[in-house]
């Protein structure tokens, strides 16, 4: 029997596959295409204290093996989420991770406090969204920023706290260490990489927001490198993502040191991607006769 379960600071995932925030809605959009009970966890669309409409369209551009998005955190607000989405999600075996973003540190603290009383499994701090003008990404690009926000939110957060890092930094290791020191229970990475696409005939950016966050297969080597670097630098579990489309991709991240992985953009191409990744991992483990995912996590041997 292959055991895919993984424990991340008390969050007991049946398997290490989590749908990435912003790419899986609140789960219900995918229920006709895949079995939500078979997905380890779902990180819901990034929430803010009040509901938000997000940025002007177009909000997506296709790039070689990737996409740029500039949704800008359109969401129903934390209270709308609690009212309308938790009941549906809770009917499934999947773990609920709530991704939150704010304009100010106080926003984050308030959301963490509110959500700590709800029936959810973990909170993911999005300090790395490149698509909103104020706050968010600004916190994520310096160790000081990360330290401050993690420290303050930690006080209000009674759930496992995941800090999600932006790749748009010179040294991801420093930022990860800062989060760990101030009490993060886990580190997730990477969020999107800031990018731009230009419509050469209109001579204007493709996105109405001019720039957007890049994700998809194209970013995978950068993400694997950063996951490896972070896993080498911190002791808390790492949740890896960036371009995972199948089981082999997931294994690559796990070998690099990820205890769990998230599947994002791939859900758009293949709405059954998460479960396909679960099966792919299972398959790899069978071929190599690994009994537990811990036989894979961090097991890459460098030259």
């Amino acid at each position, binding site marked *: 029997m292959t055991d895919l379960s993984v424990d991340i600071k008390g969050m007991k995932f049946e398997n290490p596959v989590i749908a990435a925030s912003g*790419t899986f809605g609140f789960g219900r959009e995918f229920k006709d295409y895949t079995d939500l009970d078979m997905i380890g966890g779902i990180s819901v669309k990034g929430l803010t204290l009040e509901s938000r409409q997000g940025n002007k*369209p*177009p909000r*997506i551009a296709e790039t070689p093996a990737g*996409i740029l998005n500039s949704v800008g955190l359109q969401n129903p607000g934390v209270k709308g989420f609690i009212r309308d989405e938790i009941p549906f999600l809770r009917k499934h075996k999947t773990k609920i991770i709530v991704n939150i973003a704010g304009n100010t540190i106080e926003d984050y603290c308030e959301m963490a406090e509110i959500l700590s009383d709800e029936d959810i499994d973990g909170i993911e701090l999005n300090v790395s969204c490149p698509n909103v003008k104020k706050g968010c990404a600004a916190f994520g690009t310096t160790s000081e920023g990360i330290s401050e926000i993690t420290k303050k939110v930690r006080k209000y957060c009674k759930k496992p706290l995941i800090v999600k890092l932006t790749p748009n930094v010179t040294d991801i290791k420093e930022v990860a260490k800062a989060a760990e020191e101030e009490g993060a229970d886990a580190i997730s990475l990477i969020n999107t990489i800031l990018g731009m696409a230009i419509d050469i005939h209109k001579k204007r950016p493709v996105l109405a927001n001019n720039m957007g966050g890049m994700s998809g297969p194209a970013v995978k080597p950068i993400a694997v490198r950063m996951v490896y670097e972070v896993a080498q630098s911190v002791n808390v579990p790492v949740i890896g993502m960036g371009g995972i489309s199948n089981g082999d991709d997931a294994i690559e991240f796990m070998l690099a040191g990820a205890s769990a992985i998230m599947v994002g953009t791939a859900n758009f*191409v293949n*709405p059954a991607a998460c479960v396909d990744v679960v099966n792919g991992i299972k398959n790899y483990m069978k071929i190599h006769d690994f009994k537990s995912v811990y036989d894979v996590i961090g097991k890459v041997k460098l030259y």
Partner: protein
Amino acid sequence: MSRILSEKVESVEKLSRSIYKMTINSEYIVERAYPGQFVNIKCCDGINALLRRPISICNVDKEKKCIDIVFQVKGIGTEYLSKKTLGDKVDLIGPLGNPFTILKEVKNVAVVGGGIGVFPLLYLLSEIKAAKKSAFLGFRNKDFVVLKDEFEKNSDKLFISTDDGSEGSKGLITVPLEEQLKSSKFDIIYTCGPTPMIKKVVDIAKENEIKCQVSLEQRMGCGIGACLVCACKTKSDDGWKYSHVCKDGPVFWSNEVIFDD
């Protein structure tokens, strides 16, 4: 249970220099489709043309269990799609989105389409049985006029215009529409095409107090309401909000939409 379909291509026909009709065998879609809905197609395997492309359902053959899609080659995705041939499989999901509302009580119906926006209107016309149907179709020029026979068959009156007058009347398709409105009355107008045309049609409908449905386009990620990229402005209690073309649309009542983005 999977709704991710792998369906057989029955034929691919080149209708003009850049426009292709593909017939796809899909019992699943045939049994569920309504006019105005679309499918989301993976045009090439692997990472080439990564995202699915949304294409309207242009016709449904219930007997042969086939749907037609008609598309113009714009970029890499549609280019790949045009190279499929009989027997190839296409990976698609659908039918997606909200269809046109076919009202039972109406007597006179107009459809107004521009460019690639005409295709979903053919399926709509074929499903409207009880009313008298006028079709107004605008194209860039003669080379882009396709499916004329089918539109003739499925409408009582057909008006065609081209930008350069190389076929039908010259100029905007809203000109013959306004012309007709002087003598006839429509109970409802359905429109799909470039935004400027849609805006004009919506204005005309409003002036003439005619019900109107519009089918909108927006760049998409998932096609199923999850990624929230396909935003369009609609009215709400506190003024406006961003709805989503793939799930709340592509068809909206014209008075729901705000055209200022």
